[in-house]
């Protein structure tokens, strides 16, 4: 399995659509532990992404760069910035490559997670979107080409939400509600699951 610039644009567009659809749910979740703007943040990112992705990317990295810029312009909320960072890493790491391979996924996710930890001064286990990405990274390591990728990623992301539900948030706004956060899904983790797509 391999992806061209077109495939990547299509995928990013689908992600954007899913971000828009899940906005109300994510606002509500973020309202319980944070400032309730996660859905709105993703909505703005999605709108700017859609506006920028015009099917003209020559290379996958061009599409990532456009999407990164869109997220950087969108918002001052943490998740928007984390998205921008992740997309920028993808742009930088895939620079020059005409196609991407499924085998590239796990190492790219590793790079993304490392960059996000640096940017967010957080670590795995803090109960954030990063833990979801790590779960996905593990799921796509040693991948068999034939598997349903979306199902695999989605299942991993959903599992991660449950694995962390009973743990306290250790970073971000939700840190201030550490006790309250036990038993609640981390909004950012739910966002990752929604972005990669619900298993059908």
């Amino acid at each position, binding site marked *: 399995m391999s992806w061209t610039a077109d495939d990547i644009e299509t995928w990013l567009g689908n992600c954007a659509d899913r971000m828009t659809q899940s906005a109300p749910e994510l606002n509500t979740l973020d309202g319980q532990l944070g*400032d309730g703007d996660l859905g709105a943040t993703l909505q703005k990112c999605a709108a700017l992404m859609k506006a920028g992705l015009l099917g003209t990317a020559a290379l996958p990295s061009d599409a990532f760069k456009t999407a990164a*810029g869109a997220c950087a*312009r969108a918002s*001052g909320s943490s998740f928007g910035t984390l998205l*921008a960072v992740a997309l920028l890493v993808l742009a930088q790491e895939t620079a020059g490559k005409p196609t991407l391979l499924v085998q590239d996924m796990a190492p790219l996710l590793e790079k993304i997670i490392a960059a996000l930890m640096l940017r967010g*001064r957080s670590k795995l286990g803090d109960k954030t979107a990063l833990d979801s990405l790590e779960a996905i990274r593990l799921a796509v390591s040693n991948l068999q080409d034939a598997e349903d990728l979306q199902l695999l990623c989605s299942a991993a992301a959903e599992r991660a939400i449950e694995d962390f539900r009973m743990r306290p948030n250790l970073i971000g706004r939700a840190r*201030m509600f550490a006790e309250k956060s036990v038993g609640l899904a981390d909004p950012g983790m739910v966002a990752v699951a929604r972005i990669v797509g619900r298993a059908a």
Partner: protein
Amino acid sequence: MKKLLNNPDNYADEALDGMCLAHPEFYQRSGDTGRIIHRTGGPIKGRVGIVSGGGSGHLPVFAGYVGPGLLDACSVGNVFAGPSVADCMDAMKIADGGAGVLCLYGNYGGDRMNFDMAGEMLAMEGLASTTVLVADDVASAQSAERDKRRGVAGMIYPFKIAGAAAASGGDLATVTVIAQKAANACRSIGVALWPCTVPEAGKPTFEIAEDELEMGMGIHGEPGIWRGKLRPADEIAAEMLQRVSDELDLVKGDRVSVLVNSLGATPHEELFILYRHIANALAAKSVSIIMPLVGRYATSMEMTGASLSLIKLDAELEQHLKAPARCAFWSVA
């Protein structure tokens, strides 16, 4: 929600518009989104630029402190929400006079991520920048975890002092060092009595009983140290003074500046009642107060409450604190 506004979504933009209309001699808006406020006349060639940024709803913080001897530009988010990475980049570019840019802002996760990212992206374009985080709120973490503390009203001291250092021609390293020194020397704590309402949200940021106050609450309603029955102002002032001076090791002969700041609704009369206690208590310790500030220097819209900030001065900090500076909300002649 009882506020004088039009569409809640336009609150931040219309407020910035009004500010620039009222004070065109100080402020200009620019950037794709209009969320950059920068000095009228632009950066000063050869001088270090100072950029700050953060959410709306805290005037004069942040954008109000753009002015000669203070900040060069600010990126402004929605109410209580950080500015975007792109706006941080724009603010830094606009502030750049060729001698590099200091990013000087409150220690909030989102803002830090965005400024750091902006700085890295501009580094690729050859713009030199440094960062100093203000983390003055003693209520937000123990002193062992100072890097987790939030930035509150005390940040205006680093603004003023770094601004003076830049205005006097210091290079980026020098300005950064003195800004960090000012940030290190400064401690704050707030006390909240009633919440405010974020226009877009339409409901108060927290709930509190008729007879309660919360010591140490943050400027966005972040939880504080304790919540309890209202007490006499002198007791509240004494506790706040104790908490902010704890780590400063004040001794006879020390010189400090003091900021008694309204979070919004608390009137000048009550700030002066607090200041009266603090001035007397510091005088009793033979600590001198330099350029006391009593008023609204960092607010949370119509929140009721006050904060106390202290900065311990050495000769260098004091000289920069007293250097001339001007903006629509504060001037030092």
